[in-house]
């Protein structure tokens, strides 16, 4: 089992390097996590964190789109790469170029905005995406978390190269960001990465960071229901959050697996800075029918987990698939992004320690929250 503590180091410019050892692997996963997401956007900025992500890949990491996968979420923008050992330093240097002043032309901006319009058209054609966004909008109404990462088409239409340059200078700051590295003996590469980081251009005159509409840590959101049309039926969803709870991630991960396999439900999960969000989506004739179906399925899973077969089902339905890729470097890096480096290293041990009654308690909590969902908004 991997046990070495994560290596933590502050690089020149303030970028934090967090490295996890995965002995014996030929690969290295790198992830640059920048705390810039749609939740930090003001009303006239909705969608610009995502625009920046596109432009950084295109203009600052030029030619690296084949190596770097980028994604913008509510709270972070993430640039990821999976490489072999000999490419680690070059890739870290490349990722750190995300902080260099953004040079973007009118044509490049127009091009990426057109691509984002295509992306929006594709996503909005999918009822699951529409339902998910309807749930988030209801759950976090009035906060920066409510609007989709893809943003407001009106805002994007008014976007200019000067605006994105200024936003990039204000939002992309190395001292706020973390570079995660998962590979075999990562300490071998730390000095070279630090050396490369020292030569990076510095962002020009960073402005104040936006702090827009985050739900407060103490805010306990009311569980919500939402529905959108999906062919001849409705896609109905139920969403609920919980505040941070040490040790809750592993039992919930296994409980979700059992709910999917034994309950046949589409259950999703999003880990945020100070809350964890779970949502369940079903196709039904309406909310009442959906609620009954979900309640029945959750009750069945709960009973299964507490029955004689519970420990067996937990192992075969949940533990085995969850452990399957636990030592894969990309999966380790992903967990480090969302749960932290220590939790990522301890993940297999935590999973193995979960009992069927613990997983059943997670399912019981979701059942309880389902009862409080009420009638949500209907979206078209």
């Amino acid at each position: 089992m991997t046990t070495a503590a994560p290596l933590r180091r502050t690089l020149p410019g303030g970028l934090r390097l967090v490295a996890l050892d995965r002995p014996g692997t030929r690969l290295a996963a790198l992830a640059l996590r920048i705390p810039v997401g749609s939740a930090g956007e003001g009303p006239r900025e909705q969608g610009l964190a995502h625009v920046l992500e596109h432009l950084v890949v295109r203009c600052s990491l030029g030619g690296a789109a084949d190596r770097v996968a980028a994604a913008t979420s509510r709270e972070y923008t993430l640039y990821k790469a999976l490489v072999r050992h000999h490419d680690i330093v070059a890739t870290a240097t490349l990722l750190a170029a995300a902080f260099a002043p953004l040079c973007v032309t009118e044509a490049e901006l127009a091009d990426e905005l057109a691509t984002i319009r295509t992306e929006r058209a594709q996503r909005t054609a999918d009822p699951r995406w529409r339902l998910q966004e309807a749930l988030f909008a209801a759950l976090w109404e009035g906060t920066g978390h409510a609007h989709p990462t893809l943003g407001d088409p009106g805002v994007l239409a008014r976007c200019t190269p000067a605006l994105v340059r200024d936003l990039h200078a204000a939002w992309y700051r190395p001292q706020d960001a973390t570079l995660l590295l998962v590979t075999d003996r990562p300490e071998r590469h730390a000095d070279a990465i630090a050396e490369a980081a020292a030569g990076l251009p510095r962002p020009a005159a960073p402005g104040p960071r936006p702090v827009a509409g985050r739900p407060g840590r103490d805010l306990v959101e009311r569980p919500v229901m939402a529905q959108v049309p999906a062919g001849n039926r409705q896609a109905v969803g139920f969403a609920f959050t919980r505040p941070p709870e040490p040790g809750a991630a592993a039992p919930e991960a296994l409980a979700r697996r059992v709910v999917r396999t034994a309950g046949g439900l589409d259950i999703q999960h999003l880990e945020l800075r100070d809350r964890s969000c779970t949502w369940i989506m079903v196709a039904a004739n309406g909310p009442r029918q959906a609620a009954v179906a979900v309640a029945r399925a959750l009750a069945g899973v709960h009973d299964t987990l507490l029955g004689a077969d519970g420990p067996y089902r937990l192992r075969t339905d949940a533990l085995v698939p969850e452990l399957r890729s636990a030592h894969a470097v990309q999966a380790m890096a992903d967990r480090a992004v969302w749960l932290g480096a220590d939790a990522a290293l301890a993940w297999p041990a935590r999973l193995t320690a979960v009992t069927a009654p613990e997983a059943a308690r997670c399912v019981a909590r979701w059942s309880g929250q389902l009862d409080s969902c009420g009638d949500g908004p209907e979206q078209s």
Partner: protein
Amino acid sequence: MTGPRRIALPGGAVLVTAAPPAAEAPPPLVAAATLAVPLAGAGRAAALAAPLAAFGWARSVTALARRAGAAVRAEPVTTADFTGLTLETPAEEARALGRLADWFAELPHHPPPSAVPAGAPTAEHHSDPLRRALFGSGHRYAIGHDERSEYLASRSPEGIHADAAGLLGRAPVVALSHAAPATVDALAAALSAAVFRPAPATVPLPARPPVSRTLPAGPGRAWYLLGTAGVPLASPAKYALHVAWAVAGGRGGLLDRSLRRGRALTYSLAAFSREFAEGGYCMCAAACEERVAAEVAERVRAVLQGLAEEAIAPGLLEPAKEQLIVRGHQALETARGTTERLVGYEVAGVPAATAADYAAHIARVTPGQVRDAFRWCLDPPGHPYRRKGEAP
């Protein structure tokens, strides 16, 4: 490090064991075994029923394992060349995998599943019309989602069981991830106890000319699809084809540059080559607005034609190779990824050790080989070479 080991057993079955993990690697968390029954020459009904039959086998093996007190997860696995199942278990219980052959032997006497799940599993729905054109509609490689769904919907569980009954007598290929010698011996002994019918030899298919289709994809939207000939898994030409299509496809690839940059014609784009035991195909798929489908088609053809005419610059070649090598290593990071790769190779008659040599072969591909690969795709022997702008 020692490589995979192939053991030909007296009754016709083959057992392949994976190479042990690197000495310094953490102990494996999950152990896996994959059992594959070759589909070559199995007949249309068996090939159509294969995914659902495998689903039934997995359910039966799950029940048998449960009865034996083994914490084994069984999942169906079906490709164009084989059907079967993969068993996974926590690594400390890996010896349970030694019972796989016993459970497999019981399947003919095990009742079929009482419920047929809706739909048919399919991973490459968009390639259906291309595969029909490239392989001929009578070949099992041409079986598509619609044909399979229609067939399965018309069959009872007993009918599916009957369709696939003959498959259970065929010599299986079994691959085992890092297991103790006692587990390997137990599995080998159990597999040797039965006498199986050998699967017919695979017959390489002739290459056909490129085909393209534009399919509706919702209001105002379309998929533009282009398919070309490919090569069988055993062909050494596959490495150049992999590199060639990696240069063309992917984020930042030449198709991406032509279709997205400046025109934003697509957001979803895929291009790849796929090899089976008897043949292969290459494909490009681009999601776009219906009104620009013709422009997408024109640009795709222009990019491929350009690649067939001039040797590619090393600056484009090396990143594409590196991507493939990384993906090759990534595919073998899990126990089941390894066992499913090993049975696929064995069914196609490719030495298991080839899986470990993938990176070296890819690294040796030259710009000229990439150009020749595209020339061959666009103009396989016996078919006229098309010039830029000509419709296939």
